[in-house]
């Protein structure tokens, strides 16, 4: 039977929705027994949220002041100490999971699969390569312990179930290094919906030309209750902060509606939006590659189209 350990991601006492997506991924394995582990300074609140997710058998909290800031080098040995008896160890394919899980895999001497998008069985997985231009099906031998990160955009979040899983605390014996110290986090503050879970996302590209011009994107987003994204070119140029970058090296999004404004549609950007249900492209160049993937394309100047779009959407309400 598959025993699956899922490493919870959380911040500020809240469980990140990426964790509930890992649960969905894990439950594609027939008969899987799922345990969620919460590493925190005080994980009680997060554990309570995790315990409600449907199908979860158990939640383990590992409280330690050293776990305050989710440092991979500190958490990995604790995960590894806990993970010995599990067949699979999953984490989200977020910067948290990408940072942590390979260290866990190295400690367990287990192969890791990154960005898993489909789980066909306990030993067979599908994952993207070449910026999602080549989708591979891979297999490990039965009995091989597997470490994986789960691609959030490929799974829906497991909802709360009717029962609550038991919560246990554990103190894995592991030597924790002191060679890595947290200095600070500069988080962009915004009241907008989170890019990776938003039902609608509006993104701006290089065409915006300045951080100031991005206001028209924020304004349309507000009208639609949408999250805001950006292309790498827009982030590199300083028009938008790095945490808004969508694509191969940024975030992967899976909204119902994605509106790309002044984005050409480079493959590295398209990778990040392939799971969007409906894509709208606004671009003045009719040959822009973004139109090849757009459900609705509109050729023209975004500086007139975007405000007009906002006005007309407001009028439909």
């Amino acid at each position, binding site marked *: 039977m598959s025993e699956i350990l899922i490493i919870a991601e959380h911040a500020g006492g809240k469980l990140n929705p990426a964790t509930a997506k890992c649960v969905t991924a894990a439950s594609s394995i027939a008969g899987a027994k799922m345990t969620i582990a919460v590493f925190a300074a005080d994980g009680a609140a997060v554990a309570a949220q995790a315990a409600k997710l449907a199908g979860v058998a158990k939640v383990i909290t590992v409280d330690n002041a050293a776990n305050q800031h989710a440092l991979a080098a500190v958490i990995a040995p604790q995960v590894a100490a806990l993970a010995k008896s599990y067949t699979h160890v999953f984490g989200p394919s977020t910067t948290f999971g990408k940072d942590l899980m390979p260290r866990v*895999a190295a400690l367990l001497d287990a192969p890791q699969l990154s960005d898993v998008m489909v789980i066909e069985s306990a030993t067979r997985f599908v994952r993207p390569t070449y910026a999602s231009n080549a989708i591979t099906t891979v297999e490990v031998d039965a009995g091989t312990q597997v470490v994986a990160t789960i691609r959030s955009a490929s799974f829906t979040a497991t909802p709360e179930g009717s029962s609550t899983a038991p919560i246990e605390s554990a103190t894995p014996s592991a030597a924790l290094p002191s*060679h890595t110290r947290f200095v600070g986090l500069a988080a962009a503050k915004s009241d907008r919906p989170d890019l990776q879970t938003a039902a609608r996302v509006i993104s701006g590209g290089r065409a915006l030309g300045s951080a100031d011009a991005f206001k028209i994107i924020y304004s349309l987003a507000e009208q639609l209750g949408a999250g805001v994204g950006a292309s790498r070119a827009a982030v590199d140029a300083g028009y938008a902060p790095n945490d808004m970058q969508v694509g191969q090296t940024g975030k992967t999004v899976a909204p119902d509606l994605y509106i790309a404004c002044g984005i050409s549609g480079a493959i590295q950007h398209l990778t990040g939006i392939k799971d969007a249900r409906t894509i709208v492209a606004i671009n003045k160049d009719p040959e822009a590659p973004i139109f090849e993937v757009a459900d609705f394309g509109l050729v023209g100047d975004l500086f007139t189209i975007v405000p007009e779009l906002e006005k007309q959407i407001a009028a439909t309400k």
Partner: protein
Amino acid sequence: MKRILVGIKRVVDYNVRIRVKPDGSGVMLDGVKMSINPFDEIALEEALRIKERGQAEEIVVVTMGPTDCQQQLRTALAMGADRALHIVTTEALEPLTGAKLLHKIVEREQPFLVILGKQSIDGDNSQTGQMLAQLWDRPQATFASKVELTDSSAKVTREVDAGLETLEVDLPAVITVDLRLNEPRYVKLPDIMKAKKKPLESLPVADLGVETKTRIKVLKTEPPAARQKGKMVKDVTELVEALRQKGLV
């Protein structure tokens, strides 16, 4: 000697349109332009700048792969690396195997810093640096967009989902780099000539004493599900109407 080790992987150039072989056995590589993994160019550029500031004395670049990879090592030498190591293997390497091999090189070369890319753009694994750091039992700072060194530590700004995180890590350490760390220099023709004389050492993989058998078998490779070609709308009114019909606004 204050040495920095930089990983250089040969990959399909990022501008190439990837095509999957019809028989599902992989992607087409014949006659396709190959380059240094873009993140690794940035890793090397950072190492060169550190050396130029007088904070390192030697830059060693290392690649693992078939003979063709030496082209990318020569390019790296032309960019300014001092010396190159080629771990020769024709087999596909899993990230953990690659990390174990790099760990052997680390033991031999004793660098105070290893700089790798945050991910290779072919396998998109984003594993090797973190695994190496763990095998070496040293700190890591992944997805770096700014690196400041002192004699004994590095202060690294990291691009994370929530924004920009800063860590301080003791040296030696592994840093994996993100795209915004720097802009790699162009290689000049005279440097290409000079690079031909720089040392490039080949090491057969078998000599390193690492088990290289793969545990992840690739069963098939397929193109992604194609999106249906959409519709061009003539103006905002038509767009809003289309979105309204789909219940999206």
